[in-house]
């Protein structure tokens, strides 16, 4: 197991280099260092000298990938790519173009993102699985059909609608919770309830339908027939045997996103005024802040790899037949 994890972590290095290179290339195909300087310096009174000074100050006055004027290894190391990328492998993200330390920002914003994403994930998972099992329990009945129709209806509605409707009814019309905002410590609860509620409800349609499909596939298998033949109550068959055997596809989808919960949600954070990492990323893209964009893409790729490793580990946990070598 340990050798497997170590090997997977080592595989991650070339993947991260590749992701970094791809991000770098895509970013600088769209934006030049001059564009970045202009955006930072504002629309008025920007002179070519000011642009050159900004580039020099922020280390964007070098060649992008290959410095032909340098000698030896410096041809590769004295470039924008190397200078802005190498330190990330030590999780040193440097500073954004606005001068703020990216590592500090990530640490600060991770908490609010998790405060929303984690409850949405956990409660959503429980609600979706329970609802899916209920539909399976009443399969081929009106309740099942009604549940599927409800899921399709819920899936067909835009995520934005849930946010706006939630804010309108619960916060504006009924004055039950704040429309948006955030607070530190325990006072944050009243700002978390509404986005979590919206997040859970908006995910029921797709989540429950997906799990229903998984459970329906399981329920036709021999071990289920055997369990019923033994006289086990249907609830025990479903919640004990079917649920456990249906865990592998559930884990495939669920565990892999677990680390990515840190990254937050772009729209939810924006509408509810949550100071998380989702809004940080979208702000950086809009501001053409390459330092932040590459840091967030790097972090996202790293967490995704961690998620995949965790998924593999969880397979062996829920299914003893799976062995990691």
């Amino acid at each position, binding site marked *: 197991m340990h050798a497997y994890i170590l090997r997977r972590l080592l595989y991650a290095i070339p993947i991260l280099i590749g992701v970094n290179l791809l991000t770098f290339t895509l970013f600088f195909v769209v934006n030049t260092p001059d564009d970045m300087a202009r955006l930072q310096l504002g629309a008025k009174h920007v002179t070519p000298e000011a642009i050159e000074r900004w580039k020099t100050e922020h280390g964007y006055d070098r060649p992008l990938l290959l410095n032909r004027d340098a000698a030896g290894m410096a041809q590769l190391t004295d470039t924008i790519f190397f200078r802005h990328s190498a330190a990330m492998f030590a999780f040193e993200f440097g500073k954004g173009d606005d001068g703020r330390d990216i590592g500090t920002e990530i640490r600060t914003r991770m908490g609010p993102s998790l405060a929303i994403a984690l409850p949405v994930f956990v409660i959503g998972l429980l609600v979706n699985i329970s609802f899916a099992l209920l539909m399976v329990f009443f399969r081929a009945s009106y309740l099942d059909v009604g549940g599927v129709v409800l899921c399709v209806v819920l899936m067909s509605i835009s995520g934005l609608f849930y946010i706006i409707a939630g804010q309108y009814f619960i916060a504006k019309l009924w004055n039950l919770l704040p429309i948006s905002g955030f607070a530190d410590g325990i006072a944050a609860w009243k700002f978390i309830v509404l986005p979590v509620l919206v997040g859970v409800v908006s995910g029921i349609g797709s989540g429950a339908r997906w799990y229903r499909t998984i459970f329906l596939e399981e329920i036709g298998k021999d071990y289920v027939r055997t369990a019923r033949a033994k006289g086990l109550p249907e609830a025990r068959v479903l919640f004990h045997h079917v649920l456990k055997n249906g865990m592998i596809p559930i884990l495939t989808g669920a565990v892999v996103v677990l680390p990515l919960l840190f990254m937050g949600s772009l729209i939810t954070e924006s*509408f509810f005024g949550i100071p998380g990492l989702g809004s940080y990323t979208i702000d950086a893209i809009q501001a053409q802040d390459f330092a932040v964009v590459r840091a967030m893409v790097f972090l996202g790729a790293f967490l995704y790899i961690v998620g995949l490793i965790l998924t593999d580990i969880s397979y062996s946990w829920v299914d003893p037949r799976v062995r990691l070598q």
Partner: protein
Amino acid sequence: MTLKGFLLLGLGVLAGCSGAWNNPYPGDAPDANVLYSGFAERPKHLDPARSYSANEVEFTGQIYEPPLQYHFLKRPYELIPLTAEAVPRPRFFDAAGKPLPDDAPSAAIAESHYEIRIRPGIRYQPHPAFARDETGRYRYHALTEAELADKRRIGDFEHTGTRELVAADYVYQIKRLAHPRLSSPIYGLMSEHIVGLKALGEALQQAAKANPGVAPDVADFPLAGAEVVDRYTYRIRIRGKYPQFIYWLAMPFFAPVPWEAEAFYGQPGMADRNLTLDWQPVGSGPFYLAENDPNRRMVLKKNPYFHGETYPSDGADADRAAGLLADAGKSLPFLDAAVFSLEKETIPYWSKFLQGYYDSSGISSDSFDQAIQFGASGDPQLTGSMREKDIRLLTVGATSLWYVGFNMLDPVVGGLGEDRSKLRQALSIAFDYEEFISIFLNGRGSPAQGPIPPGIFGHVAGAAGINPYVYEVRDGRVQRKSIEVARQLLAEAGYPNGRNAKTGEPLVLYFDTMASGPDAKARLDWIKKQLDKLEVQLVVRGTDYNRFQDKIRKGNAQLFEWGWNADYPDPENFLFLLYGPHKKVGTGGENAANYDNPEFNRLFERMKDMDNGPARQAVIDEMLEIVRRDAPWIFAYYPKSFGLTHGWVHNVKPNLMANNTLKYRRIDPELRAARRAQWNAPVLWPLGLMGLAVIAAIAPAVVAWRRHESGVA
């Protein structure tokens, strides 16, 4: 615990919350003397050498104090002293350094000297950079890593101090404009005007290169153009004559910065904790930044060391009638604090404004119909629901301009020949901006007649100020000329019925824009429709901000949409956009149309150095005639700004030049608390209904489940 008990407990927890359940400020007293506002985009810079955009100056304007400010009430805008004892008048000198009279010709003036004397006794806000120990040494100027370990915010430093503001602080800041690390947006402009600033910038850049990793201290470098005369007086030397420089002295760029702040923030480890002067300002203004979390909220608090200032007692009769002089002579600021919360989306902002959680609001297009209706005479009025809440409407014509520019270097639409001018005039008539303002701006604008918007000297209102090439007075009303006139002009330009008279080819024009997406489609369709009237084809080239700027810079655009917002209330700040030597192509100036009319240029050079008065107006009139005839721009519209405030907010008068008006704002916190309580009583029946709905949904399932489980297989 039973379901009923659980629900009761939940309701008890909610009821235990202070104030209304939906109160987004859980820790604040409901009747606190605090103003609540929001910001959609977090400020990038709060260093006065760098902050320029409106969302940055909204904060720095309250914290830093340049020597001058704009009078809060008087119109036209008038500069008055802030920390200075008086508004300085420039003294002129020739190349030999001999003094010249005030009316000396511009050509003879080699330098203008502005000598500014600040008032003694002004002190900075409390800040750890000034804190000293018993021996008089600075407590926090030589911090070790261990001492910094638990410091994350300015409030984590136990001791604070202050000191008196001196002239050297202003000189220090002027030098900072040249620092390469700061990339001040006005360095390029000011290095053309302030004696020695360019050389200082180069010297600092060389010093930075020679010693990488160590930021050079501007105090070690001389600047001939800014010198301390005595403890409270400093002098700025300007090349030649630059009358508009006085306006820059009312902007935070020229506010004082104490050297102690740089010494404090420049220590190793500070920047890693986001403790920088760019994020934690140190000023002498009425407020200081007590909490800076631009990801969530920023809080300004009353500066306990504020030098004192009183509410203005002179204003117009209209100001008195509006109650704007009720606080005349009272000490400023009125507020104890102002809380700015990050609110990126307009819908939550608007909803919270209606709940009383924001004190003022703009009006987005989503909520326009809910807030505004137009009277029989076309004047905007509040809707009944707004009046019921005692919400007030404020409208003001922005000192801004939008235009459609022609690239004057373009072979089809550019050039100064009569035929090209007629082509551009025809297009100017075809673009029906009255319709545009009605459809897309909800009436929040007025058709532009020239490059100078209302509120700026040189603008002439009414029939006397119309653009005679596009408008005419018919039946006593100013009206756009008919499309037949435009067709006739187009034919005279060589394009009868939109086709080249020589080749028969249709006239195809290209419109470059940054607008994209579904919202922009309607506007772009409208633009195409305007040219359809002349049977001219229009190809819209949508692009991103970078590519658009690039096209304009290289002169690759043909028609494009652009705007300008006044830096200061002087016609020079608009007419320079058409000054030939400021062409975008080649010089990188602000003349995006690359218009270059020698006569206009000559008049501009004369006008920019003149004082406001009939002589200057006459020159401006001549310039306007030239530019209207040549039509390098389609003068689109002057935007109008609509804002709303609650009835408990007082002393609100839009001032588009001043950025330090928070100190005049007064609120009635008791009234606000009462209204909030009235408007935000929780509605509980939906909770009961939802509970019943859940039970109704679950009950059949439970019944069916039990029946299933008890059934025989």
